[in-house]
């Protein structure tokens, strides 16, 4: 159900790690919980963020939610398509709905595997 090549945070972000590069977005569970996404606030390029730090905001019709970094490092790209089409996060959270790309300096110590993440949301649903 949750892509096994990704790692997850307890705040419902996903991170795809390739060497020292990471692509980051929010999970399918998160987009469903938010509902229709209507606004995304993206960080500036070259900004340095710490693991766990809020680097952006995603807003649905009813909710405002921080997006937190699953790793420390430097932001190397942002998905500008989200500025005009925030609904991409609902439509394709692991693909066209990606949010930022980072150069990793250090991963968060608390990343979950797909299986662990599924356990987490199963518990949240109870």
């Amino acid at each position, binding site marked *: 159900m949750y892509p096994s090549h990704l790692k997850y945070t307890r705040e419902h972000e996903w991170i795809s790690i390739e060497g020292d590069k990471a692509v980051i977005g929010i999970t399918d569970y998160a987009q469903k919980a938010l509902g*229709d996404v*209507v606004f995304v*606030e993206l960080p500036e390029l070259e900004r340095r963020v710490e693991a766990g730090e809020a680097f952006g905001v995603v807003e649905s*019709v009813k909710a*405002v939610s921080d997006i937190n970094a699953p790793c420390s490092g430097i932001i190397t790209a942002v998905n500008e398509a989200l500025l005009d089409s925030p609904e991409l996060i609902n439509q394709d959270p692991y693909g066209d709905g990606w949010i930022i790309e980072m150069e990793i300096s250090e991963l968060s110590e608390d990343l979950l595997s797909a299986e662990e993440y599924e356990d987490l949301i199963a518990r949240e649903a109870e």
Partner: protein
Amino acid sequence: MGELKKTTLYELHKKLGAKMVEFSGWEMPVQYTGIIEEHKAVRSAAGLFDVSHMGEILVKGPGALALIQKLITNDAAKLTVGQALYSPMCYSSGGIVDDLLVYRLGDDEYWLVVNASNKDKDFGWIKDHQEGKVTVEDISDKTGQIALQGPRSQEILSQITDINLGEIKYFRFVWAETAGVKTLVSRTGYTGEDGFELYMNAEGAPKVWQALLEAGKDYGLVPVGLGARDTLRFEARLPLYGHELNEEYTPLEAGLGSFVALSKAEDFIGKEALSKQKAEGITRKLVGFEMLDRGIPRAGYRIEKNNISIGEVTSGSFAPSLGKNLGLGYVKSAEAVLDNEITVIIRDKGLRARIIKTPFYKREVK
């Protein structure tokens, strides 16, 4: 946190895949498929809402009208049987206890339909002022309420009811058999669209709900949750208690002056304060604005002009029908001018916005 109340439609909502949330002590559907989709369905076709959580208070007896006239700012004396009106209900300060609908059911019999979140407070307030030959009864728990809203509402409802709906004018109601259930059919609503609010015994609500969904199948009717109910009322600039209305704001400040009958024969609670405020002029005013910079205004955000605070946002949202980020909020009267550029503080950043005409959305009346 006690046990949440459930309407008699609860099981049907679950079956329809609704996402349920807590609202004023009730477990209610916030959405079924998605807020934007549901919102657009109401604007283009029709939507069905469970609003059984609303409060209904029955006021009956020879002293009923006198009590209502004392409590509300609008003039219920002009109501004929079969007619409804909207009114604020105020404290002596002019602040608002609640906003409600008054239905005249009979010569000495009225229904007050109040917000779920205020029902107990309202009932207490009404009981506190009860005098003369009048009974006041809270019939909320035994009353179901379903709203059918949108341009195709009349076509849909006419299939399952025995009356000529074309004869029911805005803010009028009749009793009818709907899907075999005795129903008060009222041409009112909270969306800015044509439509009906239907009241029936709570146990009859599921039958009416299902018959309507069935009748509306070919007309684009969908069930709609509280999420889209809020965005629909917001676009139509219909106030929401706890946002545009509360005990701090008066109906005059909220732009509800046409529902304050200072000239009605009876004295009413808040009259003195409101007369004084009208004579002296209001110092703040509810306005609508659109964001010029990228951002969504939300309730509680500060509004500034030239770095000085001039008020705050009461409601804000992406408006699905207009594709814009809009807000409602109170600002100092001197700043409440069309096209005035204001600043909304969103996450510590000042973003530009412009005061525009309201309602943001107005349906075309054919």
